């Protein structure tokens, strides 16, 4: 999905506020989202990719207004409700107020049936593909050309794993792009490397 979370290259944000030597967690409730996510993942109620998608599906105004760990709590709670383990009413009763959940999941996409291999040094094309559901192909590389610099071992295809459907194991390719090819006003002498599942990539016609 072209969601609010897909932030790479979006304009309008100010300086990065750096506070150094801050604690890992600032408040006692902050670890709860992660801790509960581990329970769901270990019990195979949902996948890590489904957790990511559940967070992406938070209504955009709420996504932008929430803190990082708040988004995690909302995403994980939404999954436990969607999987039928608990209900929103139980959550709201225990919270003593509203407990808004993520918007419903989109539609998963299976990996390509036939593998297409790429070599290190090969110029590849990122598909001009739009996904209704989870994807780990940031929109800033859609339809762009880059060069493979590294091949990582197979992992479950995120666009399927993000929906709990059968996720084929596919290698991911570290693809280097000239930043100026992605944005005409990008930093001088800079490149961006994006880690992309094989099904996101296509051969360049020669």
């Amino acid at each position, binding site marked *: 999905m072209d969601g609010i979370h897909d932030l790479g290259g979006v304009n309008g944000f100010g*300086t*990065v506020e*750096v*506070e150094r030597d801050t604690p890992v967690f600032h408040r006692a409730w902050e670890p709860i989202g992660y801790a509960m996510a581990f329970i769901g993942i270990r019990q195979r109620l949902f996948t890590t990719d489904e957790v*990511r998608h559940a967070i992406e599906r938070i209504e955009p105004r709420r996504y932008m207004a929430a803190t990082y760990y708040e988004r995690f709590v909302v995403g994980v709670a939404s999954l436990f409700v969607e999987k039928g383990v608990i209900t929103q009413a139980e959550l709201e009763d225990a919270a003593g*107020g509203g*407990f808004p959940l993520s918007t419903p999941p989109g539609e998963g996409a299976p990996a390509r049936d036939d593998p297409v291999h790429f070599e290190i040094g090969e110029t590849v094309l990122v598909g001009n593909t739009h996904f209704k559901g989870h994807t780990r192909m940031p929109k800033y590389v859609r339809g762009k050309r880059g060069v493979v610099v590294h091949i990582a071992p197979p992992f479950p295809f995120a666009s399927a794993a993000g929906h709990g459907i059968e996720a084929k194991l596919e290698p*991911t390719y570290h693809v*280097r792009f000239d930043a100026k090819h992605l944005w005409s006003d990008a930093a001088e002498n800079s*490149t961006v490397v994006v880690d992309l599942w094989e099904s996101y990539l296509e051969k360049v016609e020669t």
Partner: protein
Amino acid sequence: MSDHTPPAPIADRARALETVLKKKQLVPERHTADFTHTAEEEWSAKNGAMVVAKAWKSPEYRSRLLDNGTSACAELGFEGPQGEYIVALEDTPSLHNLIVCTLCSCTAWPVLGLPPDWYKSFEYRARVVRESRTVLHEMGLDIPEDVEIRVSDTTAETRYMVLPCQPEGTEGWSEAALAALITQDVLIGVALPKTE
């Protein structure tokens, strides 16, 4: 209630999630406390600092680290969730590496620790891929224009750590003294090791 009901404070919502799951017998005893301890004490940039220091001291270890980051980190006992496939990005005099996760917050937990707040900020996620030099300048790091800045966006399952160039004048230092130069910011690539 509906989605139009004002949300309860987030601390109450977080505790409600844990309480409701506990009622379903899904939460082991001390689960959140144990997770918190692991995240605060075991996953740490101090681990990544030891990896870098060892790579600076030992050419053989450096070569193993660049060849297979996951097993080189595991040699020192650093492995676990979000460390399933670790790649060390080697800086050179003409290349400066930098890490981001534009889509969420992915980081190599066993060697970097959980990421700092600024790494998860919309500002860093949106801007660093497009205007890396400006963002680094604002964060106090100026990279010469003839040095390529390479930003690795953590969009799949690879988890990165930066292997910076060893500062001049630190040859012969102990591993512990070298490790003390490596901060979480250095491992992410928004700072360089400082000897003063």
